[in-house]
């Protein structure tokens, strides 16, 4: 029995192999007004306090607070960076604000899991079919 040219047809990928979209949208800046606003507000308050000639204890508190702000800022920068990465992974993510992005991510994960389950069932069905055929001498 001749094996026909099945092998030459397009290999089906059940969705196109994942490509990372390198474009970063400017929607990101709109998604993070919170962080920018906070930073601006806090800095104004710190400048005001400095201009009041407070005693050294107050200055120490300011420094601690600034350091705390810096750590928080670092944390926020990290989170921001990861949200950008997520936007690139999730299809259509770059056009979404943060809350919609998370919803979309959740849906996307569930869809992928469903796809994997379906593909597994299909694969084992085809394998089972094969085994059956060989058993029955087909």
């Amino acid at each position: 029995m001749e094996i026909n040219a099945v092998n030459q047809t397009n290999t089906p990928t059940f969705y196109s192999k994942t490509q990372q979209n390198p474009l970063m949208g400017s929607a990101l800046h709109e998604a993070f007004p919170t962080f920018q606003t906070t930073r601006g507000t806090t800095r104004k308050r710190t400048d005001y306090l400095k201009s009041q000639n407070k005693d050294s204890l107050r200055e120490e508190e300011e420094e601690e607070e600034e350091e705390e702000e810096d750590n928080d800022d670092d944390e926020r920068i990290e989170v921001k960076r990861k949200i950008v990465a997520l936007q690139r992974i999730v299809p259509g993510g770059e056009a979404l604000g943060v809350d919609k992005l998370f919803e979309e991510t959740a849906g996307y994960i569930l869809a992928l899991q469903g796809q994997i389950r379906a593909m597994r069932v299909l694969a084992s069905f085809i394998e089972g079919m094969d085994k059956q055929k060989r058993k029955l001498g087909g």
Partner: protein
Amino acid sequence: MSSRRSRSRQSGASRITDDQIIDLVSKLQQLIPELRGRRPDKVSASKVLQETCNYIRSLHREVDGLSDRLSQLLASTDTDSDQAAIIRSLLM
């Protein structure tokens, strides 16, 4: 830190507060198998996002692997089988 949060001004309904982000992140956390059982306040937003990206990438790899496997199975199944022909015509 909560006091700083309340000082930040939100000028529109579309602005996202830090609290909202924390809430969304903790919901996302429940989807990630690795993080599901852990208390939300013990897992940082950064970690949840990192694990989310990792998890999605591993799901992608799994789909690619299954895709290859299915292609091979369909290519190597006996061609005169009706069932194989139907499946093949649906997917290829």
